[in-house]
């Protein structure tokens, strides 16, 4: 049952099979039709041949053929009935003597001559003549009275088709004992044996019948003939020249029987005797104008092919196109028939293939209607199956892809481990030696360079003094400012900062509120103090208040003071920072961290220079210079709503923005020299030198904590270093810079959203095809993989371990969810296999760090979270979870 339905399905889905079956059926039907109306079909089948025969250029008459016919004059001489055989004997002998190569005689040796026609003597004469004149082709008769081993009998049969038209001659007629060749063929073969004996016999060719290629209209008139009486006269008068001219080297056929009338109807519409048809066969063979026809098997095969082709065209291209194609195929076949006939003299069947094609046309239409619904169903099934297959293939692809990537990662890890372990030792020993020598060189060179520098500076100084005034003023001014700064604890030779200082110096004299902006450690407080020192209030009090450090409850009390008994614990009157700074300067540090309610209270003080102590009823008025500082962007605070705008405008009397250390790298060396001396002095250690590498590292380092960080770094280095030289390693810049950067954004799990979003979008566009995405982004494929891996981990963390949800989030498009889920599962699997062998989180993380070293740092936090989650859960559970995927 299953097989049948499968076969049926196969059949319906293959247009070739259907076309074959249809063609076969049509062929069988066409044969049936043929049998039913054979005359019509035969006539139709041979229409091309008949048409061609009548309307083509006539074929030539062989010059080797001579036909001697019975004429009225000879009838006068020999009588109107049958002739004496002695006459034939003489004709044959003469023809032979005159050099005829092959002789045919349209006469049967089937009866004894009656006495009035010469009787036995004439018979004997004829046989004698036959034996002397060599092989003579005579007409076969069923009951031959005489036999001679020098006669060749040929039959005069003509194959009339069922439309009664004679078109072919059987090559051989099988009698009782032997097969008899056709008269014309026998003559041709006798002639061939005389001229070229090596040629193979025609009757051995295997064809049953030979199509006749008629000369002219197919009658005897188409041939040039010689009347019997002329020949007889020539013989009688011994005109050997004429006889030789006629007969020499020719195939001579004597037609002593009347040739009028006849029973064979030709395609040309003429009726001739069978001997004339055989003469045409002979001429056709002599002039090598053979026609070829196909056997019944080839006939059927061609019909089948044409029908099959038409059926296929109709099935393959439906609608009008198919009809057009089928029509074209039929027309092409028609043209082929004509072409084969003209070019190859091959007669192809016409009626059967075209009938079959017509049947196919009808059959196909019916068939299409009958099977349309079923075909539709099959198509739907196929579509479903294909979709399933495609999904399966995609899954397999994803799995393989990720597996390959995992393996690549492992391989890379292994490789680096190997190279590290082998290369490190050698490198270390070599580099220490090298470094020692380099160090010694460097120290001596440094000494020399410093000496030279000092010399050069002195020279420069003297030169400057000698050169023009305006230039000297600038430099002198800067030097002065630098010196002033140094006195104020500001160590810099940066022109920008010095200019800022100059402005500050000018501004300090006014009573305006000063706002100092800058990153932490840029020296905001130093500048605030400088404002105080440089202002007329320099002899008065300078109070520095860190607004972030004051507890909110005590804000008012601390800043404005309180009266005795105003709250629990207020045992005496207390002056606030503002009162303390009266006539002096108050420095409000970290003003950006002030709460909004406190901001409004502060605003009042700044506006009116008066305030109420806590619990007091009388306002206190103070004369105070306010200097504020912050590392936060207050303008943004205003727009975001966490800083009052009126306060902001009140504060921005004079604004100074201190540059970060990384923007004035020129100060790094001076600062380093001063700090080293200071710190070493504090620690009681000799002042260490900085190696060139260390110096470069200090300059190049991005000092997020600015001078403060810089100083701490040096402190740490000096504290931990024993030698006289501070190398790059001893500065520990890597750790120092990494950890603050990591700590700067502790809560930020989602990294650089723009970039990741872009990558994710690109991945979505390419249906999570790594290769394509990598190509589009112009990245390495593994980079894309790492990004996706990171995103996957992150999404997993966000979805609390729900992989389906995480995949859906990442995929965006539901059609891609499965693909992403597979990848995600695989990444997570890999992670689990990596951390499984470890007992503690720390070990696992260490290994992860090594293994996922290419993962962006921001994503590593997700890894950490996942690892922690894993260790928090029971391991078996997670394993089960994995199995569940």
């Amino acid at each position, binding site marked *: 049952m299953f097989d049948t339905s499968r076969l049926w399905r196969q059949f319906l889905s293959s247009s070739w099979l259907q076309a074959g079956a249809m063609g076969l059926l049509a062929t069988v039907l066409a044969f049936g039709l043929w049998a039913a109306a054979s005359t019509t079909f035969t006539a139709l089948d041979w229409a091309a041949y008949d048409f061609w025969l009548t309307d083509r250029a006539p074929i030539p008459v062989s010059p080797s053929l001579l036909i001697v016919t019975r004429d009225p004059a000879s009838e006068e001489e020999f009588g109107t009935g049958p002739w004496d055989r002695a006459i034939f004997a003489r004709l044959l002998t003469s023809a032979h003597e005159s050099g005829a190569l092959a002789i045919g005689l349209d006469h049967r040796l089937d009866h004894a001559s009656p006495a009035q026609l010469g009787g036995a003597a004439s*018979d004997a004469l004829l046989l004698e003549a036959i034996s002397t004149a060599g092989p003579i082709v005579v007409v076969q008769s069923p009951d031959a009275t005489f036999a001679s081993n020098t006669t060749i009998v040929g039959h005069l049969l003509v194959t009339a088709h069922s439309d009664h038209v004679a078109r072919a001659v059987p090559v051989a007629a099988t009698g009782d004992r032997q097969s008899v060749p056709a008269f014309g063929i026998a003559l041709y073969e006798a002639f061939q044996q005389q001229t070229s004996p090596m040629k193979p016999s025609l009757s051995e060719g295997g064809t049953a019948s030979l199509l006749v290629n008629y000369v002219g209209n197919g009658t005897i008139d188409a041939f040039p003939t010689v009347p019997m009486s002329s020949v007889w006269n020539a013989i009688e008068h011994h005109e*050997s020249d004429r006889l030789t001219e006629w007969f020499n080297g020719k195939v001579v056929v004597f037609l002593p029987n009347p040739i009028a009338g006849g029973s064979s109807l030709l395609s040309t519409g003429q009726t001739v005797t069978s001997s004339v048809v055989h003469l045409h066969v002979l001429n056709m063979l002599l002039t090598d104008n053979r026609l070829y026809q196909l056997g019944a098997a080839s006939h059927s095969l061609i019909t089948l092919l044409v029908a099959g082709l038409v059926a296929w065209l109709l099935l393959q291209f439906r609608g009008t196109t198919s009809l057009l194609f089928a029509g074209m195929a039929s027309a092409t076949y028609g043209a082929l028939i004509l072409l084969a006939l003209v070019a190859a003299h091959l007669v192809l069947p016409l009626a059967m293939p075209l009938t079959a094609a017509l049947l196919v046309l009808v059959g196909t239409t019916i068939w299409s209607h009958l099977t349309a619904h079923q075909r539709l169903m099959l198509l739907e099934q196929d579509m479903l199956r294909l979709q399933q297959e495609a999904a399966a293939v995609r899954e397999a692809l994803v799995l393989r892809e990720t597996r390959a990537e995992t393996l690549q990662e492992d391989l890379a890890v292994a490789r680096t481990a190997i190279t590290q372990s082998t290369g490190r030792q050698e490198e270390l020993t070599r580099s220490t030696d090298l470094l020692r020598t380099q160090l010694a060189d460097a120290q001596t060179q440094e000494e020399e360079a410093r000496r030279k520098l000092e010399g050069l500076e002195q020279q420069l100084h003297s030169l400057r003094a000698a050169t023009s005034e305006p230039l000297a003023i600038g430099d002198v001014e800067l030097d002065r400012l630098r010196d002033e700064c140094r006195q104020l604890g500001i160590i810099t030779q940066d022109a920008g900062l010095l200019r800022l200082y100059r402005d500050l110096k000018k501004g300090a004299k006014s009573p305006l509120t000063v706002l100092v902006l800058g990153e932490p450690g840029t020296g905001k407080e130093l500048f605030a103090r400088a404002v105080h020192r440089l202002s007329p209030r320099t002899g008065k009090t300078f109070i520095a208040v860190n607004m972030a450090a004051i507890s909110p409850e005590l804000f008012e009390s601390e800043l404005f003071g309180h009266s005795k008994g105003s709250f629990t614990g207020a045992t005496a009157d207390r002056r606030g920072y503002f009162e303390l700074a009266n006539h002096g300067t108050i420095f409000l540090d970290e003003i950006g961290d002030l709460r909004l309610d406190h901001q409004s209270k502060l605003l009042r003080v700044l506006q009116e220079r008066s305030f109420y102590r806590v619990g007091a009823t009388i306002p206190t008025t103070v004369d105070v210079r306010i200097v504020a500082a912050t590392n936060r962007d207050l303008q943004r605070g205003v727009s975001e709503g966490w800083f009052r705008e009126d306060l902001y405008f009140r504060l921005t009397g004079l604004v100074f923005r201190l540059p970060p250390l990384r923007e004035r790298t020129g100060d790094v060396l001076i600062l380093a020299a001063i700090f080293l001396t200071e710190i070493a002095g504090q620690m009681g250690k000799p002042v260490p030198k900085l190696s060139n590498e260390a110096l470069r590292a200090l300059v190049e380092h991005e000092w997020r904590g600015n001078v403060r960080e810089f100083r701490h770094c040096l402190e740490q280095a000096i504290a931990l270093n024993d030698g006289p030289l501070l190398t790059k390693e001893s500065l520990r810049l890597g750790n120092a810079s990494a950890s603050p950067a990591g700590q700067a954004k502790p809560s930020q799990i989602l990294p650089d959203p723009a970039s990741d979003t872009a990558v994710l979008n690109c991945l979505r566009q390419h249906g999570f095809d790594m290769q394509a995405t990598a190509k589009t982004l112009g990245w390495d494929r593994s980079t894309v993989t790492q990004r996706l891996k990171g995103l996957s981990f992150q999404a997993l963390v966000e979805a609390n371990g729900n992989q389906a949800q995480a995949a859906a989030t990442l995929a965006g498009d539901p059609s891609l969810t499965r693909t992403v889920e597979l990848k995600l599962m695989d990444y997570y699997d890999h992670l689990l296999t990596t951390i499984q062998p470890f007992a503690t989180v720390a070990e696992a993380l260490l290994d992860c760090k090594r293994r996922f070293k290419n993962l962006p740092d921001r994503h590593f936090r997700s890894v950490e979270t996942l690892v922690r989650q894993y260790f928090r859960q029971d391991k078996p559970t997670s394993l089960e979870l994995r199995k569940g995927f």
Partner: protein
Amino acid sequence: MRRRLVLVTLLFASFITRFPVHSSFAQAPENAPPPVIETPPPSSETSPAPVPADEHRLPELLPHEPEDAVMVLGELRNAVRVSPNSADGRLKLAQGLYRIGDLDAALDECRVALKLRSNDARAYLQLGVILLAKQDGHAAAIALMEAILLDPELTHAHYSLGSVQYSLGHLTAAIQSYRRALELQPNFPDARYRLALVLKLTNRHQEAAQFMEEAAIGGVPQAQYFMGNAYRNGQGVEKNLPLAIRWWTNAVEFGQQRAAESLSQLRRQALSPDQSERRRKDAIEAFSQYRNELWADYPGTVRSDASESLGIALLKDSQASNGITALFAEAFALSETAQDELARLYETGLDTRLAQFDRRILACFATTAADGFIPSKKALARIYGKGLGVTPDLQKAKTMLKGLSKQEAKAILDEIAGR
């Protein structure tokens, strides 16, 4: 006896069925009745008049002069009127009617005779012969078989039955009949000839040649012609062209035109420049050998040299008749000496044996000249040029000289002019 009854019944049945049809054609035929036995066509060659070997033929079946036959017929009718119940009289009348070709009337007479005497073998024979002449082979066979049943010794019935069997295509039966006739009458050359023909047609060439030779020796000219053919083709005998020439010459003497034709053919083979050298040489040698062998026919004649003519030798030996025959034979066999002698004899004549300007000599010259024999051409040119026994015809003489060398032609023309 029973068999005979059956045969008779069959015979009558055939009469009853055929009679009405034949009666409508019973009028005297316009053409002479076809001969029962082949007769040689009239000779065109002016060879010595052939003497037919009449003693071997059936005298009653031979056609006589028509005047005689009509007179005899009247007598026979009178005899029948006198005694109408005489079967013999009726039979004789039937013979007479048969001779003049009134086959239907002859048939009627035969039937009446058979009614009068039903066991007459000769009557049946007569009936069979007439039926054979009427081409009713089956009826003829039945009548002849009846005759043989009545008289198994009737040679002529066997012979005729052979012919009937042959015409019916029963070759084996024909052979048997001829053999039986020969057993009864061994000295029957015609039967031998017929038997030889049928044997030949059944491809028993050796046996056929044997019987044919006997018939030829017996004087049947057709047999002689066929014998000549057999020797030429080597059919049943060893190939021997001189013997072939001999038999053909013999046949020509009996007026066998075909033999003359064959001889002419052979002469052309010897003389025509178109023929291959080998064939020509064969033919020339054959004629030469034939001429030599002629000497053996006249053992008494002494031959002095190889090129000597037998005819001249015989003439010298006063055997005029034989000499002339031999001369003709030699001349036909391309002997230049004999030819010259005949040319001389043409002008002079030879006492009573040969007239001056004998037509036979002229015919001989014409025949051989047509075959391309130069001496004959020269002789004819002279005869026509000079008008020896013919009307002078210089044009014809010049035509004869065509193909000769210029000198020869000029010499002869000069000779003609010098007359």
